[in-house]
């Protein structure tokens, strides 16, 4: 039986269960179950100013990368525009020992984990395939096969259990794991299997789904007939929907979900209700499949603007602060532009080196033959150069 009156797309405002602490108009509201508690040693004003700065810088990473792609400096970029609050809220709720398994769009979480944004650009430039150290940042490499990382997160969390790093009461030891994924990924077998494994073993993992309403061109209705957070119940753990454009609410909800995991009380599902303001990636053209009207409506729910209004109205930040953040973003922009163009191409023989921990004799032989073939050209131009030269002549 179909129920056309009930569909996720009709819940433009996120529906009655949406957890929200800061309205799109910048008004603080209370929620019976969730409250915003700044981290130890910080005032609320400091924390909110910090979130604002994080979101502005994250948006700058995104817009610079998009521009670099347009200038031919990146092969591709997956934009996060509009999802800054979801990522900063989730990223800032982490403790150092927690481990994050990202998709390919978690630039804001990467920033929170201290990954240099240039490393993200390197991946999309085609210089490497993710050259940050996952163990140095407790932030895994980007995963492009949709949903595959949710199983990795669950397995990692099962390892955490076996290390006795949950439920000890030691805030520096108890560890939570976050699996990031999008609305489209919820249709993947791997994501559903990860829910089952996590539930079966009570694994300390938080499934953080950024529902940005679109899987490239397919709207959320193609993936689900019920709000995504309600699926969690069927797997046997709690799920809730938070306003993913509200950094305070996302932070508060994630703090609780992460604590639940760290305390050994098992997995949970957080659906961050948000909107992909940009294209899926720089190769996508959203004008072919969605109405600009929708985009305009979501602009009114911008994650950064509401924090700016709140800080100003409450007198928690003056013009000096906003100017300083802007200057910092400009500086970051320059660093990324210059840094990206200066990223060197890898050595053509480098792919051989990390196929295995223990290189096989036959691979070593292949590498050495290729290296000697390459050096056989000496200073003569290769045909690759020749072809480019000829193409350039036309």
């Amino acid at each position, binding site marked *: 039986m179909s129920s056309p009156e009930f569909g996720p797309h009709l819940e433009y405002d996120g529906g009655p269960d949406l957890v929200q602490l800061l309205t799109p108009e910048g008004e603080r509201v209370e929620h019976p179950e969730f409250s915003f508690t700044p981290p130890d040693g910080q005032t609320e004003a400091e924390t909110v100013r910090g979130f604002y700065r994080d979101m502005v810088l994250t948006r700058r990473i995104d817009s610079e990368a998009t521009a670099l792609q347009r200038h031919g400096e990146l092969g591709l970029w997956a934009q996060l525009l509009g999802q800054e609050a979801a990522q900063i809220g989730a990223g800032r709720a982490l403790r150092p020992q927690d481990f994050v*398994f990202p998709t390919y769009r978690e630039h804001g979480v990467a920033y929170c984990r201290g990954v240099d944004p240039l490393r993200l650009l390197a991946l999309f430039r085609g210089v*490497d*395939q*993710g*050259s940050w*150290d*996952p*163990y140095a940042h407790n932030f*895994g*490499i980007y995963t492009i*096969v949709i949903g*595959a990382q*949710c*199983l*990795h*997160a*669950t*397995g*990692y*969390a*099962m*390892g*955490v*259990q*076996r*290390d006795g790093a949950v439920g000890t009461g030691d805030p520096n030891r108890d560890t939570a794991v976050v699996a990031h994924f999008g609305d489209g990924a919820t249709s993947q*077998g*791997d994501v559903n*299997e*990860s829910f*089952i*494994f996590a539930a*079966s073993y009570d694994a300390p993992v938080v499934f953080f789904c950024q529902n940005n309403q679109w899987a490239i061109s397919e709207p959320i209705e193609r993936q689900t007939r019920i709000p995504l957070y309600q699926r969690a119940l069927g797997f046997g753990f709690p799920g809730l929907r938070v306003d993913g454009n509200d950094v305070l609410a996302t932070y508060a909800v994630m703090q609780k979900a992460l604590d639940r995991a760290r305390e050994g009380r098992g997995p949970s599902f957080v659906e961050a209700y948000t909107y992909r303001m940009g294209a899926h990636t720089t190769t996508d053209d959203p004008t072919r499949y969605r109405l600009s009207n929708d985009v305009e409506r979501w602009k009114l729910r911008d994650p950064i603007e509401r924090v700016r209004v709140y800080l100003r109205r409450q007198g928690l930040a003056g013009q000096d602060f906003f100017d300083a953040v802007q200057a910092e973003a400009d500086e970051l922009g320059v660093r990324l532009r210059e840094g990206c163009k200066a990223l060197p191409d890898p050595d053509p023989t480098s*792919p051989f*080196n*990390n*196929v*295995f*921990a*223990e290189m*096989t*004799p*036959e*691979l070593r032989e292949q590498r050495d033959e290729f290296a000697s073939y390459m050096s056989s050209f000496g200073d003569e131009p290769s045909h690759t150069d020749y072809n480019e030269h000829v193409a350039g002549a036309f």
Partner: protein
Amino acid sequence: MEKFTLAKALNAGLRKAMEADPKVLIMGEDVGKLGGVFRITDGLQKDFGEDRVIDSPLAESGIIGTAVGMAIRGYRPVCEIQFDGFVYPAYDQIVSQIAKFHFRTEGRVKMPIVIRIPFGGGIGAVEHHSESPEAQFAHTPGLKVVACSNPVDGYWMIQQAIAHDDPVIFLEPKRQYHADKAKVDLDATPDPLFASRVVRAGADATLISYGPMVKTCLAAAEVSAAEGRTLEVIDLRTLSPLDMAPVYESVRRTGRAVVAHEAHLNLGMGAELAARITEHCFYSLEAPVLRAAGFDTPYPPARIEEHWLPDLDRVLDTIDRTFSY
């Protein structure tokens, strides 16, 4: 010296590996109380507990995908895929995730995962229980693929694969599990894992095989000897990387090579072996490299599998053909 079947030898090897390293875990369907459908993990959960011998939900991608996460956390998972034909739901996790993790992280994250797969036919099973998917994995950069053929290798190779820092697809010839017993010297120094071995010396032709077909090839050599031809039989043991030195050395002496495997002919291991032998032994060859293999059809219903599998007669026939050149 104790005598083991292949099944018992693998069980003893797994036990030894778990005793040697507390990070070694076993995961799979029915591997706990039941001891696996072939009893390879028999008794291990009782002795090592449910945290180390993990009965998983019935989801192959889930088994392999969570093993990736455990490996990232520093564990050494040994995953059991119940039957060869059930590995495909986990294909992405094996070829796109496990195989590429070390590469993508520039060596920062290791994947010391062993995926045990009972493979091959000849046991009268229903469909999806008799397949030989080795070429699909040997074709994938980042995976190592080995196949044991006897109890002694089963005992040592499983321990070596578990101790190895790269992912290993570990193929076990299921029709040999309970077939023969062999003496296993538990104090011996084993051959290296990634080495082929001449298992019978000969001068007239080289017969190359692995896994369940090694026994058939040894029988073929026996019959040929009675007919006045001596065949050298090589058990490859490692399919990726290939250890070709003993093969080249042998073929240069004999001038003739036959490859035998249960897997389909088209683009099977025999194709790669033929290409390499042709390139490296070209001036020694008296005949083209020939193959005795499964046909390019899906695995047939069990009542005709004996015709489909390359048996002693088909191997002997292929040997005859190599001498017709």
